[in-house]
C-alpha cells in the first residue's frame, strides 16, 4: 500500500467539506443543476436509471484490508449490501442516496480513499497491472509511477475541464495486463539499450463508438520526463481537442484528425518548452515515492512446505482451483491467488458486504492485508504462502468466491447494462447468466481454454467488447434488445479490434450464438494448444459466419 501523509489526507478531507457544501447548495437551489452535475461527476456521483451511482477510486487497483472492510461498511450502511467492481479497477455502488454521499466520502477519507475524478471530463483514476510487484515478467514495480501520476493528476488546475474524460494506464511487464493501448495515454515502462529506464508512450487509444488501438507517440521517454510529457500531451489536448461534438471529443479523434506525425510534433514542441521545468523528476524522487509503499517480509521457509502438493494430489476440486486461479509469484514458496467474482447467479464483478469483510479477513490472515482489483473484475490476493493456499481455498469456496474459471469463458467481463445504466440499449447481466448456464460444465470450459468474452450494454463500451476475443455489444432495434458480435479483439500486447460477424442477434439467440462460435473453434483448432484468438487469426471469419448465419439461409 501507499500510505497517505498529512498532506494527502488534508486534500481528501477538504474535498469532502467542499462537496458537502456543493451538495447543500444544490439541494437549497443555490447551485444550478447542470453545474452540480459536473461537480458531482468529479466526485464519482452519477444519477442512474433508478438511483444515483457512486464510483469510488481504487488507485491502480490496490486496496488494504481496512479499505475493503470500509467498502463492506458502505455497502451495508448506504446501499443494498453489495458493490460492483468495474473494468477500471474501481468499485461502484448503485443505490446510495444523494444526500448521504458526503457522509460516504467522509467515511472513505477516514481510510485514505476518495471518489475524486472517477467521472467527468478530467483525468481519471490511474490503472495498472494487477500483478504489479509480484509478476515474474516485470521490469520493476509500476505503482510508484502510478502514484506519482495520481498526485500530479489530482485536482490538476489546468486539466479539470477537458473536452472529454482522460484515462492513463501503466504496464511494466512483458505481458500487458493493463490494456494500455486502449487508454488515452498508455505507458510501458522500459529499459533502453543503454540500460536506462524510461517509457514507451502510446496516445489516443480507446474503446467506445470509435475504438482505436493507441499509436506509439514516443518510443523512449527518459524516466525523469514522465510528468512533463503528460503535461505536454494534456495541454495540446485541452487547447485543441474538439468540444463541438461529444463523440469526437476524445484525444483519439484529435490524434486521428491531426495525423500522428503532426500530433507528435505538437506534443514534442510543447514538451521541449517544459521538460527542464520543475516537472522534471530529480534523482531520488522516485526512490522517495517507492519508500512510501509497504514492503513485505516474505517467509524464507515458505518453499519448504509440502502440504500444498499433498492437497493437490488428494483433492481434485482444490487442484482444479489451483490450476485456474493461481499464478506464479516471483518469490519461491508464494503464489498469487485469484478471487473469482464470476459465479452462477451473480452479476460479474458484484460482491456482497459479507464477502468483502470475509476477504479482508483472509487478506489479513494470508496476504499481508492487501487485495487487488483486476480489470477483469476479479480480486487478487497477491502474496500467499503455498502452505496457506488450501485453507484459503476452503474459505473462498464457502464464500462462493472460488469458481475455478479465471481466464476461462465464464470469467467474462460485463458492464452494468440495462439493469442499472441509463445509457444502455440492452441488458448485459442477463446474457452473462445465459452464457454461464450454457457453459456451466468446467471440464468443457477447460477444454475451450483461455478466452476473453467481453460485453457492453451500449456503444460506450464500458465492458470493452471491442477488444474481447468474443465481443458482445447491446444495440437497440425498435425498442428491442439486440446484440452485435465481434471476434478476434485483444487488449494485450497483440492488441487488436474485433471484427463484426454480421447482423445482430436477438436476446434469445445471443447465448446460442456464442455456443456456435465455440463449436466452430473446437472443430477447427489445429491442436488443444491453439487458443481461440490464435485460431481465429489463422482461419478468419468465414467459418464462423457460415455457422452463425447458416440456419437463416436454409
Amino acid at each position, binding site marked *: *500500500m501507499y*500510505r*497517505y*501523509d*498529512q*498532506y494527502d*489526507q*488534508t*486534500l481528501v478531507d*477538504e*474535498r469532502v*467539506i*467542499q462537496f458537502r457544501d*456543493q451538495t447543500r447548495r444544490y439541494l437549497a437551489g443555490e*447551485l444550478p443543476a*447542470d*453545474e452540480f452535475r*459536473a*461537480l458531482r461527476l468529479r466526485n464519482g456521483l452519477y444519477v442512474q436509471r433508478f438511483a444515483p451511482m457512486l464510483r469510488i477510486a481504487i488507485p491502480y487497483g490496490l486496496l*488494504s484490508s*481496512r479499505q475493503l472492510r470500509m467498502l463492506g461498511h458502505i455497502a451495508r450502511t448506504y446501499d443494498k449490501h453489495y458493490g460492483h467492481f468495474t473494468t477500471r479497477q474501481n468499485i461502484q455502488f448503485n443505490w446510495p442516496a444523494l444526500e448521504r454521499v458526503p457522509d460516504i466520502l467522509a467515511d472513505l477519507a477516514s*481510510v*485514505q480513499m476518495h471518489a475524486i475524478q472517477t467521472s467527468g*471530463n478530467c483525468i481519471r483514476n490511474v490503472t495498472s497491472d494487477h500483478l504489479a510487484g509480484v509478476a515474474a515478467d516485470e521490469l520493476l514495480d509500476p505503482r510508484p509511477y502510478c502514484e506519482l501520476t495520481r*498526485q*500530479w493528476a*489530482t*485536482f*490538476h*488546475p*489546468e*486539466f*479539470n*475541464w*477537458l473536452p472529454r474524460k482522460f484515462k492513463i494506464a501503466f504496464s511494466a511487464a512483458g505481458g500487458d495486463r493493463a490494456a494500455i493501448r486502449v487508454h488515452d495515454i498508455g505507458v510501458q515502462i522500459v529499459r533502453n539499450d543503454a540500460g536506462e529506464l524510461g517509457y514507451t508512450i502510446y496516445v489516443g487509444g480507446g474503446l467506445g463508438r470509435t475504438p482505436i488501438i493507441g499509436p506509439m507517440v514516443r518510443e523512449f521517454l527518459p524516466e525523469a520526463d514522465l*510528468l512533463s510529457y503528460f503535461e505536454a500531451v494534456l*495541454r495540446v489536448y*485541452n*487547447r485543441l481537442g474538439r*468540444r463541438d461534438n461529444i463523440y469526437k471529443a476524445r484525444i483519439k479523434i484529435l490524434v486521428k484528425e491531426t495525423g500522428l506525425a503532426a500530433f507528435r510534433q505538437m506534443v514534442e514542441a510543447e514538451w521541449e*518548452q*517544459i521538460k527542464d*521545468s*520543475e*516537472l522534471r*523528476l*530529480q534523482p531520488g*524522487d522516485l526512490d*522517495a*515515492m517507492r*519508500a*512510501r509503499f509497504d514492503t513485505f517480509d516474505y517467509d524464507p521457509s515458505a518453499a519448504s512446505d509440502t502440504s500444498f502438493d499433498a492437497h493437490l494430489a488428494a483433492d481434485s476440486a482444490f487442484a482444479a482451483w489451483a490450476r485456474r486461479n493461481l499464478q506464479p509469484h516471483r518469490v519461491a514458496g508464494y503464489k498469487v491467488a485469484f478471487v473469482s467474482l464470476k459465479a452462477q447467479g451473480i452479476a460479474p464483478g458484484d460482491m456482497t458486504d459479507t464477502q468483502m469483510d470475509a476477504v479482508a479477513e483472509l487478506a489479513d490472515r494470508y496476504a499481508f492485508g492487501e487485495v487487488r482489483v483486476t480489470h477483469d473484475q476479479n480480486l487478487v490476493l497477491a502474496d500467499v504462502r503455498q502452505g496457506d493456499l488450501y485453507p484459503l481455498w476452503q474459505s473462498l469456496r464457502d464464500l462462493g468466491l472460488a469458481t475455478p474459471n479465471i481466464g476461462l469463458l465464464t470469467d467474462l467481463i460485463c458492464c452494468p447494462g440495462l439493469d442499472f445504466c441509463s445509457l444502455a440499449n440492452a441488458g448485459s447481466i442477463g446474457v452473462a447468466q445465459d452464457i454461464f448456464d450454457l457453459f456451466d460444465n468446467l471440464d468443457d470450459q477447460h477444454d475451450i481454454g483461455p478466452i476473453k468474452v467481453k460485453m457492453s450494454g451500449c456503444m460506450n463500451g464500458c465492458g470493452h467488447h471491442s477488444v474481447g476475443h468474443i465481443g458482445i455489444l447491446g444495440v437497440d432495434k425498435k425498442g428491442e434488445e439486440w446484440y452485435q458480435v465481434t471476434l478476434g479483439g485483444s487488449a494485450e500486447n497483440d492488441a487488436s479490434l474485433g471484427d463484426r460477424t454480421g447482423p445482430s442477434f436477438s436476446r434469445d439467440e445471443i447465448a446460442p450464438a456464442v455456443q456456435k462460435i465455440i463449436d466452430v473453434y473446437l472443430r477447427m483448432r489445429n491442436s488443444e494448444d491453439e487458443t481461440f484468438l490464435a485460431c481465429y487469426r489463422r482461419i478468419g471469419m468465414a467459418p464462423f459466419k457460415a455457422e452463425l448465419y447458416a440456419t437463416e439461409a436454409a
Partner: protein
Amino acid sequence: MSALIRPGEVLDNRWIEIADDADLPASGQVILSWARWLSLDGQIPTGDLQIGLRLPNTLDVVAHASQLQSHPLLVLDFPSFADGRAYSQARLLKARLGYRGELRAAGQAVVRDQLQSLQNCGFDSYQLRGDQDPALCIGAFADFSASYQPNLLAMRKRLRPGSHAPLAQ
C-alpha cells in the same frame, strides 16, 4: 451586477469594455476584443489610453506573444461552465511567457467552484458571473489549503525522509 474580486478583496473595476463598433476614447483604461485590436492594425491613438484585451479561448497565445506582452490587462474568456481552454492559455501566459500584467478571468465558469483552480493557473483577478456572491467567492480561495500542482516542489519536499511521516492506516 457582477463583481470583480481577487483573494481577500472586492476590487473597483476601472477598466471599461468598449464595444467593437464604439469609438475609442482618447484616454482611460479600456478593454478591446481581440478582433477589434487586430482591426486597429497598430493604429493606436496616441495619448493617455491604456488598452487591455479580451482574448477568445481559441487563441494561440504563444504564437501571438509579442502582441500580448505589452498590454497591462488580458482578459481570458470562459464561455461555458465546462470549457476549460483558457486554463491552458493562463498557464502559458504566466508560466511560459512570463506575462507581468493583470490576468483576469471572465465568463460563465468564473464561479465559486472554479476559483481556486483559476488561481492556481495564474489568474490575478476574477470577473464573477452575475449570480455569484463576492463574499462567498472570496472564501472559496481557501477551499484547499494545499495543492499537488502546478509544480512538484511541494511534493518533492514532503517526500523527503523525515519531512512528512506516513499516517497509520
